[in-house]
């Protein structure tokens, strides 16, 4: 399959996404915000629809919409303007409704849209790949630099705030990273399923990991493995890659949960 250029591009972009999505999702899952990616994905869908209407890059508009949506959710949550789930519902449903209205107005309720909703291995171009690589590398670099600070907030957000750590700024950074991850991942995994790739590898890793750092690294390995295996199965079985990738990640969770039940995981937790 690697003689086909679109497969080489899909695997290369998928590898970046497989590493980035769980690395960002790690901080959301640990703060019990696993579903936030879904809300941001729905806002990204509005960006895709706006791209169809304006006939400009759907990825660029999805990126802008996702980052703005992510920061808006964090802003609402942090100021307690709405409870966490209410803030999510507000952004989540407004995003999907605006997307549906825009797409139907553009007359593009067709295969293009399906590719963005559920992922496609045919659609990654060289320019898409360079965008994924640049944003993915930037995202992973930011996480590498701020890992200790972001992990400290996971452990004790209030204690960090008392000690003068800029918690609000760091939370916005995580939200913006989530928006970027969703925008760059939607072509392969799809906006409806990318949140799963941010959460499931982390949940699976936490069943067998022995520390925060090992959870992060294991979840990235599971994410990478899920994307590469999912793309391979998707190619040979002619299935939508997003669904297959997420099912592989769910399978990884089943394996990790079984391993833990058999005594291979941490003593507790």
């Amino acid at each position, binding site marked *: 399959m690697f003689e086909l250029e679109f497969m080489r591009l899909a695997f290369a972009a998928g590898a970046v996404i497989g590493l980035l999505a769980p690395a960002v999702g790690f901080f959301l899952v640990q703060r019990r915000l696993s579903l936030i990616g879904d809300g941001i994905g729905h806002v990204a869908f509005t960006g895709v629809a706006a791209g169809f209407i304006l006939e400009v890059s759907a990825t660029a508009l999805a990126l802008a919409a996702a980052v703005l949506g992510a920061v808006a959710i964090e802003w609402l949550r942090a100021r307690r303007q709405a409870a966490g789930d209410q803030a999510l519902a507000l952004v989540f449903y407004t995003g999907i409704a605006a997307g549906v209205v825009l797409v139907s107005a553009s007359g593009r309720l067709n295969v293009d849209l399906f590719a963005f909703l559920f992922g496609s291995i045919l659609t990654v171009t060289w320019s898409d790949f360079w965008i994924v690589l640049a944003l993915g590398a930037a995202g992973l670099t930011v996480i590498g630099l701020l890992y200790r600070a972001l992990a400290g907030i996971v452990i004790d957000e209030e204690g*960090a705030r*008392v000690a003068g750590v800029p918690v609000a700024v760091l939370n916005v950074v995580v939200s913006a990273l989530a928006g970027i991850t969703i925008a760059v991942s939607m072509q392969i995994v799809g906006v409806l399923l990318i949140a799963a790739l941010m959460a499931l590898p982390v949940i699976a890793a936490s069943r067998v990991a022995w520390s925060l750092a090992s959870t992060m690294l294991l979840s990235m390995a599971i994410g990478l493995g899920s994307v590469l295996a999912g793309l391979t199965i998707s190619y040979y079985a002619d299935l939508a890659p997003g669904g297959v990738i997420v099912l592989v990640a769910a399978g990884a969770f089943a394996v990790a949960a079984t391993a833990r039940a058999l005594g291979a995981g941490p003593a507790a937790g």
Partner: protein
Amino acid sequence: MPLAVELRGVSFAYGRGQPVLSGVDFAVEQGQFVAIAGPNGGGKTTLVRLALGLLEPTDGDAFLFGEPAAGFSRRATLGYLAQRSQLGTEAPATVREVVSAGRLAAGGLLGALRRRDKAIVEEAMRTVGIAGLAGRPLAALSGGQQQRAFIAKALAGEPSLLVLDEPTTGVDVDAQEALATLLAELRRELRVTILYVSHEFGAVERYVERLVLVRGGIVFDGPPQALPERWHDPSHVHV
């Protein structure tokens, strides 16, 4: 002695609701060990959050070490142990990872901890007697051991003020006794000012020099031996 904490005529209400605290004057000298108790909803946590500059008084002024609390310039020297429900005790962190998080404000946000910061983290774990548990997952420890890990985390910031909010929730009686002894030692050896907030005085009553009862304001502030017998269970405080 100079003051660590000072509230002058402080009142506070959440939104447009009834005042939680009215006209509170409260001061803690540096190096004191003070227990603050009162019934649930009486305003003790609000009082501490005002003192730490996390809430703005609707009336009056709050100071930390002589500076306005909200803009306090040496926040890295404030150690705070939040209520257990707010702590990430279920995150798969090791004890060392938890304690290292206490070095965040003082050690800088970017990159790895430096050697000096790591040494301070190890010393904090030794001080509270959990150095042997450093590599263990926090979730695998007892409530009392988890509590010590979070106290070590607060100590890793080399605090001049240590605030513990409901530290005995979910902790057995023996661990509560051990905690009270540990805090008395820390106060004596490190000269750290300690505010201990709880719905009951419990084991610390024997070690503190002041008990403060809060219910909408301060209804008692004095040495333990002066506390009226009927108020030894602060949940029964009625004014």
